[in-house]
């Protein structure tokens, strides 16, 4: 039961880029097209699931003081693996993602999930968490990529959507368009959350962007407890 719960929370309730507002570097930089977003998401799923699994396995051996370094080493080895795999089997994708493949190492989601979840939970739950978060991340990136590609280039996964008279809204595939789109989606998510809780008669939820309900505060708290203890 809790396996399903940990898996499902990454799909909507704690959707990484739009609820936790984590992992924004690839979210903004590689979503020029839906295919790029999907490829980036797949790479992140691979790294996230394996790093969560490995970190969860070795969590009792890692000394508290050097845990961040250990997490980074594990994530970095996995990223190198994914980079080499991509070069071997998906070279065009590797070329279009460019520097952002190695940059998965410093993606906040990897470290965030390792610190907040995998280092405290058993292996099977960590895998579920990684899988859910990874799939949520992929969904978000593909959605944002599709949105920007449709309006910015008039295409979806490379196929033309609009007629020949459509003048592409190039702003959307430029860098500022990414920020505006992200802001719009965050706003829409907040609006949905307010609407839902209003319908259920609940008090207003804590929102992304202002606080996010991201549990980052609980990370800080646990850190304090650790320092005090």
């Amino acid at each position, binding site marked *: 039961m809790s396996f399903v719960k940990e898996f499902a929370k990454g799909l909507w309730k704690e959707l990484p880029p739009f609820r936790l507002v984590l992992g924004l570097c690839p979210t903004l930089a590689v979503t020029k097209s839906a295919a790029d977003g999907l490829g980036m998401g797949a790479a992140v799923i691979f790294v996230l699931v394996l790093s969560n699994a490995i970190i969860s396995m070795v969590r009792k051996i890692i000394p508290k003081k050097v845990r961040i370094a250990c997490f980074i080493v594990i994530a970095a080895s996995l990223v190198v693996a994914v980079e080499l795999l991509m070069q071997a089997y998906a070279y065009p994708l590797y070329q279009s993602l460019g520097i952002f493949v190695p940059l998965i190492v410093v993606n906040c989601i990897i470290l965030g999930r390792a610190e907040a979840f995998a280092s405290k939970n058993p292996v099977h739950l960590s895998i579920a968490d990684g899988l859910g978060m990874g799939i949520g991340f992929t969904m978000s990136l593909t959605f944002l990529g599709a949105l920007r590609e449709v309006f910015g280039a008039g295409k979806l996964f490379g196929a033309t959507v609009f007629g020949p008279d459509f*003048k592409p809204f190039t*702003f959307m595939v430029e860098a*500022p368009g990414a920020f505006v789109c992200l802001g719009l989606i965050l706003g829409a998510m907040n609006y949905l959350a307010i609407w839902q809780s209003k319908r259920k008669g609940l008090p207003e939820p804590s929102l992304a962007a202002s606080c996010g309900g991201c549990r980052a505060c609980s990370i800080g708290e646990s850190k304090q407890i650790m320092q005090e203890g």
Partner: protein
Amino acid sequence: MAKEATAPTLYTVAAPPHWHCGRTVTGVMQQYILALVPAAVMAVVYYGLPALRVMALSCATAVAVEALCCRVMDRESSVDDFHAVLVGLLLAFLLPAMAPWWLVVMGSALAIIIGKMFFGGLGGNPLCPAVVGWAIVALSWKTQADPDAMVLSTMLVNPLTQLKYLGLEAAGQVSLTDMLLGRQLGGLGATQVLALFAGGFYLISRGLLRCYVPLAFLAGVLLAGLAFSLADPGAQPGPLFHLFTGSVVLAAFFLATDPSSSPVTRPGMVAFGLTAGVMTVLIRVYGIYPDGTPFAVLFAALFTPVFDLLRPKPFGAR
């Protein structure tokens, strides 16, 4: 506001001060629009009815979109303060007279939505709304938003494009008098230099516009232009060329002075104007855009919070 009063004797008491000079947002906006009228008339004289079409469409879209936004945001409609009309008019001034209708509609709608209403309406915008709308459409549809590519049925030339692609000699065919009178190609109202000067001075003389930003902006353009022309007189035009071309005068008096995106302190305003002015010339000389004035205004507006830190020492402070 439409809620029923709970008690029968409930009097509305406005917050103090209870007397004021009679100046209202609506009144100020109307004066701004009045100051833009000469340039609008000149634009119709030079470009004919297409210019009027762009201006009317832009203003109408801005008002409609703002009314719609207010409806969606569940707040009292703010279109009666004429700010939307002003934004629409300023945006139209930056566009070519032959701009396609969808470009005008998109620019005007985005100026109001992204430039103004996202930040809570008038007074909350960190950037000048009209410039935001222009920047988005100019980035997206380079050809359709470019006066050189759109206005073909005219004898006017754009001195800035001539300078960029053909050199100083080609730019010299437009005399300073022609530039002053608006006989140059550009955004439909942005190039009516004399009319815009008249409007700007009218606002300053009525006390509706403080002179620091415009004067510092013009000074920045003149200084930077002078520096470049002294450094390389063979390839760079004189400072007055930079002052009278493109949308410099419009930006100095109407775009950079946008109340909520420009600093409030006197030293801050001067620094803001100088930055925008110098940036204008830098973009023209080194950038890929023939006229970077609106981008310079956006750039300077990003630093407004920093310029606001330049404030006079309070009396008695240590």
